[in-house]
């Protein structure tokens, strides 16, 4: 009777073998802190050791000392951004400062900021905006410019549609992506009304010498193929008190950044003293990216 079973199955497994294998697998699973997790759920100590591994890996890949920071959100801080439409001249310095700072792929090209050229006659009108304007000199007559990146919504449609919970808003208001958990379904790109999310169609093409080695695990570390990425307000800089790269690159000083909860901040001054608008207000996304008229 027992022989029939062994002749039917090519690799007979006894009850004892099955039990011990299962126990070993379960023990292994428990010992490695219950298998893979979203980065937001990883305990602090384990996160740091994972980031140490990443640092070693990146340092080897790019041939320079890479640091991957895990600076958390500070208490009493909600970041906000303001952009002076009356000053922006559409020179795209911000676009390329962002690419350099945030290790965006050069080929295929990924740009987190798109500068839209709009007709003064039409006002803010996305249907007739042009991101591909090419001119000898800017500003061009009859045009104004609206740079658009992630609006860091307080009511973000992108995080709601993610089927795996790989994107969320941090306590300081920055909407981030777990590049290790993203499955690349691109639902968030479809949900975003600002076209602010970008997909990595292939591995990032960045020359080693151009890689920015100061990274944050939720920010500018190199993204693998098949995940979505977007502006994080330069999380690696702003969590250390610095301004985002685009703020410092803007030659006309049109970009302003600060803490929405600090009544002395530039952002609060702008909201209280200037004419302020948000894009696609009717969608109730409640952006923390404000546009204003400084003049």
């Amino acid at each position, binding site marked *: 009777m027992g022989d029939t079973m062994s002749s039917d199955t090519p690799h007979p497994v006894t009850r004892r073998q099955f039990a011990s294998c299962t126990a070993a697998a379960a023990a292994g699973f428990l010992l490695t802190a219950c298998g893979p997790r979203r980065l937001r759920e990883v305990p602090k100590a384990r996160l740091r050791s994972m980031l140490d591994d990443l640092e070693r890996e990146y340092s080897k890949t790019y041939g320079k000392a890479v640091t991957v920071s895990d600076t958390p959100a*500070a*208490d*009493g*801080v909600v970041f906000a951004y303001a952009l002076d439409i009356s000053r922006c*001249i*559409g*020179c*795209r*310095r911000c*676009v*390329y400062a962002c690419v350099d700072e945030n290790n965006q792929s050069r*080929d*295929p*090209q*990924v*740009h987190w900021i*798109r500068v839209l050229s709009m007709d003064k006659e039409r006002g803010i009108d996305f249907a007739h905006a042009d*991101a*591909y*304007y*090419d*001119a*000898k*000199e*800017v*500003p061009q007559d009859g045009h104004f410019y609206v740079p658009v990146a992630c609006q860091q919504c307080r009511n973000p449609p992108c995080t709601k549609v993610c089927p795996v919970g790989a994107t969320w808003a941090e306590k300081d208001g920055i909407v981030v992506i777990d590049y290790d958990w993203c499955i690349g379904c691109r639902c968030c790109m479809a949900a975003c009304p600002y076209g602010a999310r*970008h*997909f990595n*169609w*292939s591995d990032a093409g960045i020359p080693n010498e151009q890689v920015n080695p100061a990274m944050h695990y939720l920010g500018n570390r190199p993204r693998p193929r098949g995940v979505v990425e977007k502006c994080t307000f330069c999380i690696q800089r*702003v969590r250390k*008190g*610095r*301004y985002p790269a685009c703020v*410092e690159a*803007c*030659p*006309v*000083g049109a970009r*302003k*950044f*600060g*803490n929405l909860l*600090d009544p*002395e*901040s*530039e952002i609060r*001054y*702008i909201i209280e*003293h*200037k004419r302020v608008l948000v894009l696609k207000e009717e969608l109730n996304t409640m952006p923390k990216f404000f546009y204003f008229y*400084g003049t």
Partner: protein
Amino acid sequence: MRRVPFVLVFIAGALASGYGAAGVRPPQEERRPAQAAPGARIQVPPPPFSDGIFPCSECHNKDMPPNRTRRELTDMHVDIVLKHDETHRWCLDCHDADNRDQLHLASGEGVPFSESYRLCGQCHGEKYRDWRAGVHGRRVGQWNGQKEYLLCAHCHNPHEPRFRALEPKPAPRRPSRSTGVRSH
């Protein structure tokens, strides 16, 4: 006997509240941008002089008495094109004839070049106010700490303050059907 626990509770409560307050309250003194009180001087980088032009008293010394008549300059400074309310203004409205190494306000008060914002602020009060708040112009530094202001003259040529047009950086590549995978 009955007092001891009460005292203990009180001490514990005081400790806890003190600890809680210290832990929760953000370090406001450090975080606040150095707000410039009215009249206070602001830290700025050195003024952007052209090479070899300063100090002005190198040439404008005792041997060269100031000529206060408004005129077209023909011998020196001919490269300066005044396009800044030129129908009403000329050099000595801002530059001081008695102390060549400084500027002066409409009141006659002398102002060093490093505080030229006070001079500009006489006419452009609204911009001056925004600049002090960090809303007009470029600032670098820390959003929650020390910031560096730039003088008006770092971005605007005071003699010709309108911004020059710039050459834009290259446009993004268009997504194309044939190479859809390569560009997005």
